[in-house]
């Protein structure tokens, strides 16, 4: 007789993984036919899943217990960026000073506008600090958040919101503001919306995806290195 607990967790993984992959696949088909930002799979899929979780009176713990393996695949996906980055090495070698300036300006804008807008909205303390690293990818952001006195858990949520919102808004910006170079289009997504933005950039073009992936990684490293300095300034 197998352990009932084991069967329970196996069922949980099967159920929640099937729900997640199924809704994602469906949302992708819909987005392919009607490519509107509000039909973006990263927006539609979580809403549908949340409805199922709430309808079944399940909790986030139940859900993530069954789908954590999907989040873990973000690690191999990060490694996978080595291929497009290597294939675009000529472009990167030619334009690294431009990308570096873009990353510094973008990262500075992110921290300054987050701080200023949060102050304006009357948010302060750990909440405001948790907002500062939200435009870099989750593992880096949580590291920085802890360093500067924020709440890493909350930062993780803000990072994800930034990613979804950024991937959608990047499209809107590109539709209205003409950005001629693939280099700038990639940097827009990589600096502004980390992994989710990079995934979107990779769908727009191979160069855009490679630039976004590279910039995402470098901007994350840059922020981890700058965090002690920012912490000093905030004290």
């Amino acid at each position, binding site marked *: 007789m197998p352990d009932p607990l084991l069967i329970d967790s196996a069922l949980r993984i099967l159920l929640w993984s099937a729900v997640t992959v199924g809704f*994602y696949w469906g949302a992708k088909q819909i987005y392919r036919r009607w490519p509107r930002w509000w039909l973006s799979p*990263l927006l539609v899929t979580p809403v549908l899943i949340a409805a199922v979780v709430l309808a079944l009176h399940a909790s986030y713990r139940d859900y993530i217990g069954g789908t954590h393996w999907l989040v873990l695949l973000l690690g191999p996906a990060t490694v996978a960026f080595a291929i497009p980055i290597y294939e675009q090495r000529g472009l990167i070698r030619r334009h690294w000073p431009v990308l570096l300036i873009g990353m510094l300006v973008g990262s500075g804008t992110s921290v300054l506008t987050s701080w200023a807008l949060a102050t304006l909205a009357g948010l302060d303390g750990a909440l405001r600090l948790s907002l500062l690293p939200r435009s870099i990818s989750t593992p880096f952001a949580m590291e920085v958040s802890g360093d500067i006195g924020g709440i890493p858990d909350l930062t993780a949520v803000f990072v994800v919101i930034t990613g979804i919102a950024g991937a959608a*808004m990047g499209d809107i910006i590109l539709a209205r503001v003409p950005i001629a*170079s693939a280099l700038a289009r990639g940097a827009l997504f990589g*600096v502004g919306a980390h992994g989710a933005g990079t995934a979107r950039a990779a769908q727009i073009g191979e160069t855009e995806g490679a630039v976004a992936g590279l910039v995402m990684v470098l901007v994350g490293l840059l922020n981890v290195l700058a965090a002690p300095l920012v912490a000093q300034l905030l004290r």
Partner: protein
Amino acid sequence: MSSRTVTARATHVLRHSAPLQVGVVIGFWLAGEGIVRLFGLPLPGGIVGLVIVLALLASRRVRTRSMRRGAQWLLADMLLFFVPAVLAVLDHQELLGLTGLKILAVILVSTVSVMITTAFTVDRCYRWRADHAGSAPH
């Protein structure tokens, strides 16, 4: 069969199988995680794995062909891997009220600012360099 033909066959199979290549990528990620744990580095394991693969590609010890299909497969559906993390919002009910709206506004306005300043900075610098290098920007 000599060991050489076995290696050649294995390489051939690897170059045509996306699932096997995903396995190779996962292997490099695990190696990265291991190194991070071993040395207590303040970095995600995926980043260390990425640096290892880049180093192997640059020194021509590994060819892009042995990972290209697997990498494309992982990157094409990367958005799916973010979906479960989004549901963490369910655990933070305090974000559903006015505070949540304020935070959302801060995130939206800040993200648009970051995207526009970054894209414009890169675009301007790119054109400036292209003009000064004597070739027209494309």
